């Protein structure tokens, strides 16, 4: 058996997951529309005053992004677990961490990245100024990978468990809180004149930590689930 290089395995997993998702576009699009609809509901519930909307926009967009990411966590491992692909991945000669990293990257490309691209359009509905929009996009671009990484742990732990979908939210949402605080806080800090640098740096620090620890914890969780 020829040795598969680490990089080609990583790219292979990403391409495979993207291709699978493209064959069932509705899964990806449902998450996106969920994001758009949740964000659009807030002005209806709170009222159309622009001052108020401008103030709550970063928080609303971030909470909606959190919920949308959480909804899409289910498809991260569940299908591969059901048809036995995951078992083969655990058994393969390529380190499981790499394969998990590839799946998380694919998950982010399908959920986090579209959310980040859509966010400025929704931000305009909330009358956010251009500077805030830029910070919002930057915070989402750094923060949503963290959401995918932490979510992967929850998805791994709840594989094949009764009521997995609801359970994953109970496990993962408390862990999302720091990301939410700094992500939405970045826009607030920029508006108040403090500058968003500190918040974005903290988010980036969380991302650096999560890239290592979350992938590691996910591999452990998957091994436990497949035992």
């Amino acid at each position, binding site marked *: 058996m020829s040795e598969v290089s680490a990089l080609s395995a990583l790219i292979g997993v990403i391409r495979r997951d993207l291709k699978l998702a493209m064959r069932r576009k509705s899964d990806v699009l449902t998450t996106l529309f969920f994001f758009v609809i949740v964000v659009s509901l807030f002005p209806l519930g709170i009222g159309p005053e622009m001052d108020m909307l401008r103030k709550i926009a970063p928080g609303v967009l971030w909470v909606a992004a959190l919920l949308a990411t959480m909804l899409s966590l289910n498809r991260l491992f569940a299908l591969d677990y059901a048809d036995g692909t995951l078992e083969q991945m655990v058994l393969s000669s390529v380190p499981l961490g790499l394969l998990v990293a590839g799946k998380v990257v694919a998950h982010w490309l399908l959920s986090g990245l579209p959310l980040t691209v859509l966010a400025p359009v929704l931000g305009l509905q909330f009358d956010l100024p251009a500077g805030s929009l830029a910070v919002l996009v930057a915070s989402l671009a750094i923060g949503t990978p963290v959401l995918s990484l932490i979510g992967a742990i929850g998805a791994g*732990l709840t594989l094949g*468990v009764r009521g*997995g979908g609801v359970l994953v939210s109970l*496990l993962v949402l408390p862990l999302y809180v720091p990301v939410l605080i700094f992500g939405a806080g970045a826009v607030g800090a920029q508006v108040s004149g403090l500058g968003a640098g500190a918040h974005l740096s903290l988010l980036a620090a969380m991302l650096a930590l999560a890239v290592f*620890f979350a992938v590691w914890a996910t591999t*452990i969780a998957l091994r*436990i689930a497949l*035992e």
Partner: protein
Amino acid sequence: MSRRLINWFKYSSPQTFYPLAGKMIPWFATLAVLFGAAGLYIGFFVAPTDAQQGEGYRIIFVHVAAAWMSMFIYLVMAFWAALGLSLNTRLSGMMASALAPTGALFAFLSLWTGALWGKPMWGTWWVWDARLTSSLILFFLYLGFIALQSAIDDPRRADRAGAVLLLVGVINIPIIYFSVQWWNTLHQGASVSLTKAPTMARTMLWGMLLMVLSFWMYAIAAALYRVRCIMLERERNAGWVYELPEVKS
């Protein structure tokens, strides 16, 4: 030295730990009552009225002790989780799941008594301050752990999955502790610290420490009681369970 090692491992099996736990429970329960009675007596009758906060501050004796225990129990659970994952011991997972309801109880108590304290002091039941918020998240983490464990039927997988979740969640504990320094908000700073002299009267400090000891003993007694139930449930097919006098009769 080698003798001690043998003793450690001897009690890591449910068969030997079950009777030991049974012997220890009355002691810890008695101590909990004694410390609690002494702490409450000092708290309500000996400690002076606070100059700024009046009589309302007396809830501190329950509140601080409960908040400390809620954080400490999570750390203990994480310790058992790490031990269980690395050494693959059966008892560690049982201890972690036995501690979880007690920890959740203390987390809830600290939130509730905090609200009762906040109303007369700040004029509001709840503020979205960093420390309150992170205590609330700690409570959610306990609930998540309990929910995950009860959703998995295989006890071995439940233990190991719970252990991973605990170790991931333990990141939250330092955030609780350092949040006071990170965000400067309504909540008063820590009034007891190890490095500088406490800013409260000595009797108040004694009352608080006694309450902490009392809660500590209660937590140990409750966890041991619960772990005995878990042992019986999981080892119901093992021979030693049938030879127990309480099972035989």
